[in-house]
């Protein structure tokens, strides 16, 4: 088996890298693919809580790199999906504990037994980002339809190209269809036109994402969640399938449609 390494990065913090990593990994594993995700945000560990695996951590990424445990011992198996694993970040170290070549070596070992290796990059453009993209076969940039997030995404796209890891693909996260309709949020088409890269998914703003994070259950496993559907679609596109993009405008809920009918001039 020769697995594929996918790095999820953004430049700006708080746009949804960790949530996207957890959900894409869950989506891939729920279709029977062997997926392992690596939290590369050393010192600010979070992928463990988003996946609900925080109580099972014994060893972490830095323990593997520094030889205190075998790779296998640092891999936490998901409680719901037997094909999903997490390698957590160290919480008490800093990013200099791991080098880009450590990440390449680790990824090459994981490629032998997994279909997909997903790396959750830290925010910023320094060591942690370099570590995260060093082993990448494919880089997915995540952004929000918002001025500062788009600007940072553009910068990251340039850096990924300079490292010859491009062309990167784009996820637009937290799109609010109502605000787009009112002309108060950049539409997916606007963001694509500005960034000029290939789109791999548009995830609508969805309260279920927070509910899922509260519980440690990725929304990709919730068949009723719209964001969950968007993440499952991304999982399928990663596997090379052609999945039409969700029409988020028409998928606005029943109450939205009723209130639109009742709004004067709407």
């Amino acid at each position, binding site marked *: 088996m020769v697995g594929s390494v996918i790095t999820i990065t953004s430049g700006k913090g708080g746009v949804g890298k960790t949530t996207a990593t957890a959900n894409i990994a869950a989506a891939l594993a729920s279709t029977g693919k062997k997926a392992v995700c690596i939290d590369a945000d050393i010192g600010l560990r979070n992928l463990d809580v988003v996946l609900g695996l925080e109580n099972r951590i014994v060893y972490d990424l830095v323990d593997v790199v520094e030889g205190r445990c075998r790779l296998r011992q640092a891999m936490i198996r998901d409680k719901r999906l037997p094909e999903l694993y997490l390698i957590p970040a160290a919480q008490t170290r800093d990013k200099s504990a791991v080098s880009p070549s450590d990440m390449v070596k680790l990824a090459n070992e994981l490629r032998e037994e997994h279909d997909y290796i997903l790396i959750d990059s830290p925010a910023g453009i320094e060591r942690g980002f370099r570590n995260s993209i060093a082993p990448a076969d494919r880089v997915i940039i995540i952004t929000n339809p918002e001025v500062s997030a788009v*600007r940072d995404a*553009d910068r990251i796209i340039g850096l990924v190209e300079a490292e010859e890891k491009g062309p990167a693909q784009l996820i637009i996260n937290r799109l609010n269809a109502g605000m787009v309709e009112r*002309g108060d949020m*950049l*539409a997916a088409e606007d963001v694509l036109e500005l960034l000029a890269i290939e789109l791999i998914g548009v995830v609508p703003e969805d309260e279920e994402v927070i509910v899922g994070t509260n519980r440690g259950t990725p929304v990709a496993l919730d068949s009723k969640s719209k964001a969950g559907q968007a993440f499952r679609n991304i999982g399928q596109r990663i596997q090379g399938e052609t999945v039409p993009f969700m029409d988020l405008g028409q998928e606005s809920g029943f109450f939205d449609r009723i209130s639109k009918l009742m709004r004067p001039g709407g």
Partner: protein
Amino acid sequence: MQNLFGRKRGSASSAKDRLQMVLIHDRSNLPPGVMDALRDELIEVISRHVKVRKSDVQIEIAQDGRKQRLVADIPLETDGQNR
């Protein structure tokens, strides 16, 4: 109600316009001030050889996907006096 008085332009369009400008300068690493200096120096160099209509000189960064080109439009004086 907004429609009766003419719909207010959404903030998304100003976000897009502003981002377009910001990204051009971020990508080229040419801040607006440097563009102005570049324009003045270009005019100076070219004016050593040929008369140009200084006020109509346009220098801009053209976008082609993620690639950029510096495009200069430098109109010449055509009063027949410069030969």
